[in-house]
């Protein structure tokens, strides 16, 4: 589904990704772990098409299509979703209005009519129940005055609404208390299917207890230095990242 080949990317001429290779198939959950500054969020941004980052080498392919010249909104229409580590505030725009616009823009790109209000309402009801979101919450200005947990839960609500093919969750677990984490994780698990894929970016093993990955990759200095099954996450939790840093330095 998503194929990343020898990906190099830099910001302000500083190289951050230095040759990433990763293949993610439909139905899989991949966790990307690694110390601060290893390039995890950059990888997420580059897949989403953020033009603050320059791809200097390599490629990202979605279902066989090279995304190089595809704009961020087109990537979204094709099914790429990024749950932001720091969701952005848009004052005066309600969660509902934002989602309505997003869904209808995607439909427009596919040559479809706007979603009828009745269907939209049904979808909102269904997905907000899935994530145990109070309907009142949906009338609030997007991310404005939201707590850390509310912001993250809102990101996953949006993911549920947009039903992406590839969802990248960038540190969705940070800022969540244990109850919120459980709700978000169960939401993600319910949305998981054999037709979509999830990339979890996280520092901690904690999230992986709830959303069990098929593969775990460790990112260090812009490269994947180790890949393994879910047990790798446990090993990291126990030993920290230093042993890997040493190992790769050799």
């Amino acid at each position, binding site marked *: 589904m998503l194929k990343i080949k020898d990906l190099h990317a830099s910001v302000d001429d500083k190289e951050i990704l230095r040759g990433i290779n990763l293949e993610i198939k439909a139905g899989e959950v991949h966790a990307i772990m690694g110390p601060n500054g290893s390039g995890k969020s950059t990888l997420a941004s580059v897949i*989403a*098409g*953020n033009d*603050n980052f320059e791809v200097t080498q390599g490629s990202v392919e979605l279902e066989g299509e090279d995304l190089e010249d595809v*704009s*961020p*909104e087109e*990537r*979204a*229409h094709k099914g790429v*979703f*990024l749950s*932001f580590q720091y*969701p*952005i*505030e*848009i*004052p*005066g*725009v309600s969660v509902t*209005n*934002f989602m309505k*616009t*997003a*869904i*209808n*823009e*995607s439909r*427009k*790109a596919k040559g479809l*009519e*706007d979603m009828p209000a009745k269907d939209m309402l049904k979808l909102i009801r269904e997905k907000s129940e899935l994530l145990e979101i109070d309907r009142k919450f949906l009338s609030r*200005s*997007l991310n404005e005055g939201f707590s850390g947990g509310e912001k993250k839960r809102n990101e996953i609500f*949006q993911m549920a609404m*947009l039903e992406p093919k590839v969802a990248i969750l960038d540190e969705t677990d940070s800022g969540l208390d244990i109850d919120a984490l459980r709700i978000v994780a169960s939401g993600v698990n319910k949305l998981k299917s054999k037709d979509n894929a999830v990339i979890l970016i996280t520092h901690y093993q904690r999230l992986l207890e709830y959303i069990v990955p098929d593969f775990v990759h460790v990112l260090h200095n812009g490269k994947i230095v180790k890949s393994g099954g879910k047990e790798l996450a446990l090993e990291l939790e126990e030993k920290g990242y230093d042993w890997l840093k040493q190992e790769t330095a050799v």
Partner: protein
Amino acid sequence: MAYTEEELKKELETKEYEYGFYTDIESDTFPIGLNEEIVIAISKKKEEPEWMTLWRLEAFRIWKSMEEPTWANVHYDKPDFQNISYYSAPKSADPNKTLDDVDPDLLEMYRKLGISVDEQKKLQNVAVDIVVDSVSVATTFKKTLAEKGIIFMPISEAIKEHPELVKKYMGTVVPQKDNFYAALNSAVFTDGSFCYIPKGVRCPMELSTYFRINQAGTGQFERTLLIADEDSYVSYLEGCTAPSRDENQLHAAVVELIALDGAEIKYSTVQNWFPGNKEGKGGVFNFVTKRAICEKNAKVSWTQVETGSAVTWKYPSCILKGDNSIGEFYSIAVTNNYQQADTGTKMVHLGKNTKSTIISKGISAGKSQNSYRGLVQVNSRADGARNFSQCDSLLMGNECGAHTFPYIEAKNKTAMIEHEATTSKIGEDQIFYCNQRGIPTEKAIALIVNGFSKEVLNKLPMEFAVEAQKLLEISLEGSVG
């Protein structure tokens, strides 16, 4: 007009100023220039009584002695007042005609404007008075309103049919000598709307006036006089458009609102005069004086969405004369390309326990300049006066400007005046966040701008709010590279 989402979208695809057509209607236009003869000729043409002619001449004499104001933060080539025709009427206009007799070309023009003088409008429960160039063409709904004792008609007719009301109130809120443009308007105004709501009557529908400049080289000087008698209520809408032309057209209107004891007036404007082209050529000079007087327990709300005009000079104000009266000003001013706007309000607190609220949202894009200018004045006898002002500016790009000039004059120790101001820029991170959810940049900007303006948009009547939102999007399209 009930815009469906689909219609909305379709219309959004048009990027150019969409009202820029010119309807070829035979016009009866005066020669250019301004002198006493022209003033008298206008008065004669309108078959006015002598007192009106004398009132105009007095205004003209005052105007001649005045200088065009230069304190506003706008720069433009001064109009040559001797190079304008002060009267232009579509030749076939006859106030006694019914709608069925209206020139089909004229009706086609309304259709293009998206306003219908016909049955559609009745369904919308809006009574419309349309002023094209200088003459009021048709007033719908006259009969329904008459049953409630409401008078809604062109001011030229009111001068003849209700001279006692016009004589009593005209010039009481905006005197002839008030300012340069008001004096000019008082001398040469050719039409406008007149409205009177009797005691205790709640006007059952939105009243609406549509202004449009059609003829080249003409000025439009309409005058609106609205009187809400004791304990009455009215909501009034005003819309404006003009075709695209290379030369600047002049619009200098006067609006006077009188809210007697316990009355409430809501006055909403969506101003979409031609703003000039991308290079800053052409466009309407909009120099307007709007003021309301509030008697005891009265309330006046001005809501305006200003997206058009090359130059805007406009300060809808409230004189809070009566105790416990309330004045409100909600404004969205958008400037793009080379537009300049200097707009705001004056809240003059004279009575005790008077309250005013000012919410101003300025959005600047392109190379435009957008200024808020506001005065909050508390008189020495105005015990317990309160004001809250909030001025927010949103900038797009690096070449535009936003300016705030708040003036506060408090002569009473009990006054409570609050002022808040913010300036923000649409962030790349906001745009990317929208993009990531599948929303293209232009739509993202529209969304962010609408969110920014929401507090004011919410104050508009529903139908108008949709139109205003659409206008905001159109005016800002192409403003981000």
